[in-house]
């Protein structure tokens, strides 16, 4: 009796030790690659630091300088503009792709392959392809638009269009999230549709009242990922426009990069990173909190 009891307890302890042992790389990584840099952003943000020598404590001077720098505000404006445009559009495109990939045609796998293909293209190559595709004179896009008698648009050279062009690059990578939506679509029991079909409900109504509510958990996931991707958007802007024209694509991540690695204002860049972290965390938490009002967990 005593013996078995002892053995049960030791099995529990053993499980705890093994569990912690196996996840220990993640715990280490969490502190080294997440907690440390996030806290360090706030610490470095209070210093003047060029990247060489010792950081010099200057209190809130970086933050004061930021509040007075119009380019910082422009970068925040551009970033929010991007997020507000790219996140809803991204959800819309992803659901559209999922519906397309769910059509009952024999060769549907081929369509899925093609729609996923740009997602595996290197961002530099894809961005340069788009620079060329959107070239005002020699690009395919304007050429096709000219068939419809639409005058040439200087997509990347005109501040009115430049952000839209960068949002477009992201849409070419929507195949991945589209597949996640496809999985969610196929998890919906067909019986739900059968009942509605008997009532003679139209396709569109079925989509709005059955499909869409059951996709809300995936939509929540997409919005949270989309906010993170949008707030941290860097490579397409760095490659396609370098922040221009007229700073219209100077996103916060690009502002951080330029200050840290081109102007040697590491302390200031860290301060901006800290602010970006707070914005990202707040938006993610608010979105997650709001989910109880609009996300439908019935299927789970």
């Amino acid at each position, binding site marked *: 009796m005593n013996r078995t009891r002892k053995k049960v307890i030791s099995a529990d302890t053993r499980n705890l030790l093994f569990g912690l042992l196996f996840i220990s790389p993640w715990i280490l990584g969490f502190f080294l690659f997440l907690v440390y840099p996030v806290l360090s*952003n706030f610490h470095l943000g209070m210093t003047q630091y060029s990247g060489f020598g010792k950081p010099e404590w200057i209190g809130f001077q970086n933050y004061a300088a930021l509040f007075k720098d119009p380019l910082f505000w422009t970068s925040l404006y551009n970033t929010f503009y991007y997020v507000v445009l790219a996140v809803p559009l991204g959800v819309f495109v992803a659901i559209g792709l999922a519906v397309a990939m769910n059509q009952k045609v024999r060769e549907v796998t081929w369509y899925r*392959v093609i729609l996923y*293909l740009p997602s595996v293209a290197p961002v530099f190559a894809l961005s340069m392809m788009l620079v060329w595709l959107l070239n005002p004179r020699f690009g395919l896009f304007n050429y096709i638009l000219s068939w419809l008698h639409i005058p040439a648009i200087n997509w990347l050279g005109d501040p009115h269009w430049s952000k839209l062009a960068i949002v477009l690059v992201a849409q070419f990578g929507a195949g991945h999230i589209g597949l996640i939506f496809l999985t969610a679509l196929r998890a919906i029991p067909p019986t739900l549709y059968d009942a509605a079909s008997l009532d003679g409900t139209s396709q569109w109504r079925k989509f709005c009242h059955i499909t869409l509510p059951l996709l809300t958990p995936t939509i929540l996931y997409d919005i949270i990922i989309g906010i993170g991707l949008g707030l941290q958007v860097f490579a397409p802007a760095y490659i396609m426009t370098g922040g221009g024209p007229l700073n219209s694509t100077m996103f916060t991540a690009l502002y951080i990069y330029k200050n840290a690695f081109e102007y040697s204002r590491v302390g200031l860049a860290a301060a901006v990173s800290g602010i970006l972290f707070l914005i990202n965390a707040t938006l993610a938490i608010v979105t997650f909190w709001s989910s109880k009002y609009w996300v439908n967990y019935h299927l789970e």
Partner: protein
Amino acid sequence: METLIRPSGKRPLAEVRQQLLSRFFLIATCLFYLSPMYWMVVTAFKSDKELAQFPPTLWPHDIFWHNFDQATKTFPFLSYLGNTIFYAALTMLGSVLSNFVIAYGFSRIKWPGRDLLFYPVIASIFIFIQFPVNPITMVPMFSFFAGLGLVNSFIPLVLPTFFGNPFFIFLLRQFMLQIPTSLSEAARLDGANEFQIMGRVILPLTRPALVVVALLAGVNAWNDFLGPLIYLQNDKLYTLSLGLTFFKTLHGIQFNMLMAASCLVVLPVVLVFLCFQRVFLEGVTLGSGR
């Protein structure tokens, strides 16, 4: 069309119409999604003279291979290919090893606090969307690695992959939770210890999910731009993605050459994707067992 449809039984006209509509919509969408790659390939084969033509030609007049020749002379393609393979291979190794072990700890052993500790994993997803380097943590991490003298090495890019990635942990955990616990119990009764259960029972069963992790991690490393941009400042260490910046000079961009080089950079990933397309397309499903 009709002959194709008749033998398989009488299909209602509405269904045939629906299929035609679907195909039209699908082909239009696919053409749009293929347009960047199409324009890349077509441009890569155009001569300088044809490139300057207006309106642009939709297909090169004569196939002009010279751009590829010239492109591989402008940047050391083979040595950058080697660097990229090196980076991708180490990333695959780190991702498979670490995420397998971590996911095992989060799914195959029951211990108090396990599910509570999983919340921070999920919560950290939004920071680690760009992996291994992201704009939020890059400044302090760069200072950290610079302090250790590790700039101009692959260590800052590869090391984080050995400590797990929330996306992969989530995916593998979902997969492992679907394996019946009775398998582990049976092995334990036979006298196997935890490491033997992990290596001999669970590992073989998790292989399909590990292939997905390896491929996604490999493609991610192959395509990474921000990481190499910051840490690889010596042009001998450049990866292919970074090498393409060679074509963006002060004199402007020679697009036919850049597109030829891009073809060479994109081709390996596309080939891997086409060979493993089922793994890619079905891999996403693995994580959504919920």
